[in-house]
């Protein structure tokens, strides 16, 4: 069956460092991979979408890579800030606007 795994442990880093979150998947061939941020008690907020034919995408301090051979995506936040503390979700999609399959999320804590 399809499986998506994100860093199971919470990630604690110091302000100013780069946070790197991992998303691995099996038994799936996504056309799109998306990253979301979720704060407690709120809905996920869309951050970045990367297509299967793209290797890397950037937006301000965020960078996503997508390796369809390794079946892995890496999500980087550079110059991290305490305000970046949240749970980050990886989601896969075979078609734009279709059914999303989410990972369980990685909780990131950035300490001042």
């Amino acid at each position, binding site marked *: 069956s399809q499986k998506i795994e994100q860093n199971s442990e919470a990630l604690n880093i110091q302000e100013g460092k780069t946070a790197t979150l991992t998303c691995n998947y099996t038994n799936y061939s996504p056309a799109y991979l998306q990253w979301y941020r979720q704060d407690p008690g709120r809905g*996920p907020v*869309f951050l970045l979408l990367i297509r299967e034919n793209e290797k890397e995408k950037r937006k301000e301090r965020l960078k996503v890579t997508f390796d369809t051979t390794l079946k892995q995506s890496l999500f980087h936040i550079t110059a991290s800030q305490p305000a970046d503390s949240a749970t980050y979700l990886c989601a896969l999609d075979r078609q734009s606007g*279709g059914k*999303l399959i989410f990972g*369980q999320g990685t909780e990131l804590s950035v300490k001042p």
Partner: protein
Amino acid sequence: DAGVTQSPTHLIKTRGQQVTLRCSPKSGHDTVSWYQQALGQGPQFIFQYYEEEERQRGNFPDRFSGHQFPNYSSELNVNALLLGDSALYLCASSVEGYGYTFGSGTRLTVV
């Protein structure tokens, strides 16, 4: 520009009861999807509506049903509630080529 609006924000129901959750999509979005999120887990896809028809469905029983209205708003109905239905129910709307816009969700507690 209002994003996705969900109501109510919180709800407490008794086992066996029925519940209806409501969602208004973001302006310009015509596709609405519903997700269930248990504590500490990622959202799980329930179903998606487009042009008032159910377009895709996840692995949820028939107790979960939905509807989309001509103005693109949507309802999620759950019959014969079980304790295990307690979760955050999220509505999301989208346009092709972009990510979803999620609402803040409805927290359903079944007692």
